[in-house]
């Protein structure tokens, strides 16, 4: 099990070593100490390995992740797991703005709060936040599930396409074209499935959540609005 101390090893050296890994590698579990908020730690992984990071990380940690499991024992800076393709990223602390931005797949779990713009332009990723999310979360979200145990800030789901947003607490305000929708059995099943994958099997009742999604009023140009431009 490779152990890397970022107080000693240069970050580029670590990332280069991670990028050299092949799917057949025997080095399947890495432990990284003293990240001290450095940026782009374990970004661009492309193999099914597990990376455990002990301490707070900076921007874009586990960005573009594919196949890998990244566990951050601490808080994460801007854009954790941004544009993730697949795999699992778990933050035990808080996440800064734009967590899981533009993610196309995989699962992001945040045990603390996520700041503003969580899941901005998400395109298929599933995001579970145990705490609350900040303003403009799921802005222009296109696909995937955002599950929030706590509250959501202003303008949730502004200009949303077809992502599904589930919030258990309060929503400060909804963004343009985002509305509350009926919770049907298929949605409870979807929450259950995401929560099970995130490791919350049986801990939370899916029926406690409210669902928010697109009213689909912005999909087409409306001639009545022609004079507004």
């Amino acid at each position, binding site marked *: 099990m490779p152990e890397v101390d970022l107080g000693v090893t240069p970050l580029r050296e670590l990332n280069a070593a991670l990028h050299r890994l092949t799917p057949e590698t025997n080095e399947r579990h890495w432990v990284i100490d003293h990240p*001290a*908020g*450095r940026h782009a730690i374990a970004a661009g992984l492309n193999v099914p390995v597990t990376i455990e990071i002990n301490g*707070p990380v*900076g*921007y874009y940690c586990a960005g573009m992740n594919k196949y890998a499991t990244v566990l951050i024992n601490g*808080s994460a*800076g*801007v854009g954790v797991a941004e544009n993730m393709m697949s795999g699992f990223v778990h933050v035990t602390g*808080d996440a*800064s*703005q734009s967590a899981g931005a533009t993610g196309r797949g995989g699962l992001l779990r945040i045990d603390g709060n996520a*700041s*503003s713009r969580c899941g901005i332009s998400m395109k298929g990723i599933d995001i579970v936040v145990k705490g609350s999310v900040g*303003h*403009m979360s799921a802005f222009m979200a296109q696909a995937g599930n955002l599950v929030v145990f706590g509250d959501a800030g202003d303008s949730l789901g502004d200009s949303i396409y077809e992502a599904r947003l589930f919030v258990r607490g309060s929503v400060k305000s909804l963004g343009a074209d985002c509305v509350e929708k009926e919770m049907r059995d298929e949605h409870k099943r979807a929450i259950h499935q995401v929560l099970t994958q995130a490791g919350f099997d049986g801990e939370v009742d899916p029926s406690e959540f409210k669902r928010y999604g697109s009213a689909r009023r912005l999909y087409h140009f409306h001639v009545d609005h022609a004079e507004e431009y």
Partner: protein
Amino acid sequence: MCGIVGLFLKDPALEPELGRLTAGMLATMSDRGPDSAGFAVYAAGQPGQTKLTVRSTSPLAAEELSVAVEAAFSGVQTVLHDTHVVISIPDQEIEALIKWLEREVPEAEIVGRGTRMEIFKEVGLPSSVAQRFGLATMSGTHAIGHTRMATESAVTTDGAHPYSTGTDQCLVHNGSLSNHNNLRRELKREGLHFETENDTEVAAGYLTWRMREGLSLGDALKVGLDDLDGFYTFVVGTENGFGVLRDGIACKPAVMAETDQYVAFGSEYRVLATLPGIEHARVWEPEPATVYFWER
């Protein structure tokens, strides 16, 4: 981009370490602002004495200025820091000193005035700027610093932060204001004077004007949310206090940490990573459009 750092000590035992800790934080922010750097330190002050920080054109010119001012005014004390001179003078003589400076050394710039505040700023990498001024050896109760990546105006010392907003008050800024030209015109009509085309100087002038009209710093920051258009994270220093404000969109980064010993601000967590006891600190991101203020 730009980087901001701030450190407000609650524990007097840390005061001798203020400069060293701030210098470390400032150096970490080189990545966000390699063009210029500056900082304000709230050091010891004497009742009845005002400190004027004057920026000269070179270390040699600063030395000449220091000799000349000591010859012209009895009872002044000067401390040289590279291109800057900190002049301590009895309160009643301060206006005469300012007039003398305008007449005798028009090329010198008054960058700060107050009982305790000293401001230093220069073009160059933050670590070398801090070294030139000897920041690491300075002590005090609080300090704010800035590393600049120029966007709205040229890379000059005039464009470097912090900007003084009044006696013992200063401001650093990360972001860009969209309505600074218009606001500058309006503030000029109100009698304010601007040295640069810089947007932050306008924000500082705006706060000065609001406080001149009778608002507290906290209230001036609050009404600023309506009048200042653009992206900003502000950190302000006062004689006894330290404040933070982010605009309503809050896309400019800000992380804070608080322990029993201090409140610290950084544009990124990396800035805070080397502070004592950080592993047990409460670390959070300040909310948008919310004024935070600490005093001791």
